[in-house]
């Protein structure tokens, strides 16, 4: 069970200051637009927090591009909207923090070979719900999500979208429970990324073969047998190597119920 409420709250409240700038080649006015500053929740997704910013820049671009799909880049790297904002920051700026995080806004040349299309927020919701479902398949063979009602699914999404901690956790706690007599999930929903863009997926058990609880160090030794001194970062912190995986999954997962860790 996710019992350490202070930790959950601390992670939920994590925010990042962002400075959005319109790409130079998009500016059609003589007057340069001011950059747009905003504090955004680390756990949110860009399409949920960029409506105002988009309206701010719309009057500076060519009107024929106004209905185009907007996209963002950091240092020339298109940002995948379907990952949580805090994860993207840790991936690209974790080693060399820069605040505010300065991102470039585009309305043309959508890089369709890199980014998923996101015509509206329903697409974000569908993506989010299917990721939670996948995590539940790993943890409980999908049994918790399939026994929840549609209104519970909605509450989870609305809690995240409207930044309502209590609303979200009233439902999410059920996804963080262990079932049966064995204390722990079947598998830990986890994705490990390197900043070269590669991603690592494995079926990871929260327990060692002898039944003892597995800690981060032991998982690293299994996944990277030939590398030592690998550190993993999430929510802006480097994780202590003696953290039990089960605790990590219950408390440090993103709202999509996956641990998104960056190699550093």
């Amino acid at each position, binding site marked *: 069970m996710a019992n350490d409420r202070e930790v959950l709250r601390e992670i939920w409240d994590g925010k990042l200051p962002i400075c959005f700038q319109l790409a130079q080649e998009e500016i059609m006015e003589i007057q340069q637009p001011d950059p747009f500053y905003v504090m955004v929740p680390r756990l949110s997704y860009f399409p949920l927090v960029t409506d105002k910013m988009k309206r701010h820049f719309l009057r500076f671009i060519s009107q024929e591009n106004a209905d185009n799909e907007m996209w963002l880049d950091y240092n020339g790297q298109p940002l995948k909207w379907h990952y949580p904002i805090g994860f993207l920051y840790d991936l690209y700026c974790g080693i060399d923090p820069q605040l505010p995080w300065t991102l470039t806004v585009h309305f043309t040349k959508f890089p369709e070979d890199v980014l998923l299309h996101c015509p509206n927020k329903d697409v974000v919701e569908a993506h989010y719900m299917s990721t939670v479902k996948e995590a539940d398949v790993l943890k409980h*063979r999908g049994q918790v999500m399939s026994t929840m009602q549609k209104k519970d699914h909605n509450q989870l999404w609305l809690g995240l979208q409207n930044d309502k901690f209590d609303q979200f956790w009233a439902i999410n706690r059920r996804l963080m429970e262990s079932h049966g007599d064995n204390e722990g999930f079947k598998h830990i929903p986890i994705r490990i990324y390197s900043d070269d863009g590669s991603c690592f997926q494995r079926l990871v058990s929260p327990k060692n073969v002898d039944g003892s609880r597995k800690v981060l160090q032991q998982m690293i030794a299994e996944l990277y047998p030939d590398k030592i001194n690998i550190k993993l970062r999430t929510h802006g912190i480097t994780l202590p190597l003696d953290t039990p995986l089960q605790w990590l999954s219950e408390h440090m997962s993103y709202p999509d119920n996956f641990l998104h860790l960056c190699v550093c």
Partner: protein
Amino acid sequence: MDQNSTLSVEDFVVAATSFYEISNRLADGWKLIKDENETYKTYIKKHTFLQVERDGVQSLLKTELVIFFNLSYGVPAFSFNIWNSSGVLLTLEEIRHMSFVTLNQKEFYSVITQQEHPIFLRPYFIVHPCHTAELLSALRQGSKNIIVTFLGLITPLLKLDLSMEYGL
């Protein structure tokens, strides 16, 4: 979903290899790409061209079909991309209107979505794996090759040319 309904990575690789051997005999173009380090990244793929007609205009589309292993669900998964003759990716809405799609609008959007491909980390259209496990577990007993059986579930939705000699 029950433990018995899921497939191990090793089962998938065995099935993919034998599927590839049948394809070779039939010379119908499926390729097997193995990843020795990351077994779950093994997949089979095929490139084809589709001749389509819309409003009396003929056009040629390039398609890429990829069958890979969904590690979380423990099932084979089907993904594809389609490009027009200018090399632009077709949108989900454009694909829905293609004559080879036999799903109605509501089914289509709940079954096929654009997602980041877990192996290529690029956008692909992926058929949602949610019901695959249940269906496959029911069919697995009588199945000679689980990928052939799996394609038997997909082909009514997307009319792909699959030779009868695979034993469908």
